[in-house]
């Protein structure tokens, strides 16, 4: 895919206490950043089921950002530590299933790091734009590989 006219859709799963507030700070500080990111606010990174990321890709996202409080800063004490273990496995496993892990950015962004959030957004958008659309799921439909009788021909 060339980059002509392609604007990636990026879903960002962020925690309420640090990254969401950090993103808010980026906004109130009038920091310019890519507009490709749709933020989904959750209580904690510990609430982010890896299935959310799969679902985002399934529903047409080209990239995903997962972000929360820095280690030792979790509002719920340990949610981000549990999330870190989970995403460590997820990040390695996803490549085996055939989803390029470069499409997914994991980060820690605190409430005071508006600039860091803007950088994460810009970097991820640029990287995903270069990778092109995530066509895995779309190709399933195009090739007729959609399962069962309802498969489009």
């Amino acid at each position: 895919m060339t980059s002509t006219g392609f604007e990636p859709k990026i879903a960002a799963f962020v925690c309420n206490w640090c990254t969401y507030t950090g993103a808010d700070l980026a906004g109130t500080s009038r920091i310019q950043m890519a507009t490709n990111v749709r933020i989904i606010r959750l209580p904690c990174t510990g609430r982010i089921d890896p299935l959310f990321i799969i679902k985002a890709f399934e529903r047409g996202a080209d990239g995903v950002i997962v972000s929360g409080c820095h280690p030792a800063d979790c509002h719920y004490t340990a949610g981000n530590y549990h999330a870190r273990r989970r995403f460590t496995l997820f990040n390695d496993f996803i490549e085996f299933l055939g989803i390029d892990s470069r499409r997914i950015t994991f980060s820690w962004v605190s409430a005071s790091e508006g600039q860091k959030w803007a950088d994460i957004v810009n970097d991820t958008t640029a990287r995903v734009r270069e990778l092109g659309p995530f066509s895995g799921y779309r190709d399933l439909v195009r090739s007729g590989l959609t399962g069962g009788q309802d498969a489009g021909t």
Partner: protein
Amino acid sequence: MRELKNLAKRLLEEGTVKVVIGYEEGPVGVRPVFVTRPADAEKLVFNSRCVQNLAAYLSRRRGHIARLGKSAIVVKGCDARAVAGLIRESQLKREDVVVIGMRCGGVALRPSDEGPLTPETVADRCSGCESREPKLADHLLGELPPAPPKATRMFELMAQIERMPVAERFRFWAEQFERCMRCNACREVCPMCFCERCIQDKSQPQWIETSPHARGNLSWHFTHAMHLAGRCSSCDECQRACPAGLPLGLLNRKMAEIVRNRFEYQVSDDSTVPSPIGAFKQQDPQEFIK
């Protein structure tokens, strides 16, 4: 085998247990049997066709078996890992089960596979098995047979997938999952699948599409592998039970490899070692997090 029959008979006669979960010869190969009368202990067998992981019958989902009373279970080394997993996760109390461990020389792919084990007929998990003598056992029976031959199918397929570019891997799995008809045999047979309500049965919100479509199928098999991270006993029962012949064991094998590399953890039949998921260290690696 005499040893096993005598032990089962004695346990039932003494009233130590109400049921012995073991293997018997069925019309098309070895099948599970639930022995409740001492005289029926004669039915019990143990051989290289005792493929099934009976630990699934100890899960809380199988309430009808728990209602029979305290059970004894015949396990191979690999099955013992699943029993330990259930104990580790508070699904089973150690004192509520008598574990009859069998020294094992490997098993076949299918319970109907007659004849000596060859690299073609031996189960994948038997290659390089280090738990042919279950440690989690109240009674350890049999002589240790020679090590089984090695099957290379799974390693070859794993290497083949790892050589593919990422996009091609997606294609590979999509083609595999295309054949999945969502019969849920993989879930039903899994000893570690004991959620009271499985996420794929939940419809509000529906995270995993229920229709047999490559898209929802990928979500399901991904979720199953994710939920089994650091828990899967690698019994490959999901793969054996799959009527579509999906290489599901590969997903779990890959996940086990990742868990081993990342957290130096290997699923064992020691129920006192905590699972890596549900625990954490402040110094866990995080080089992939910005």
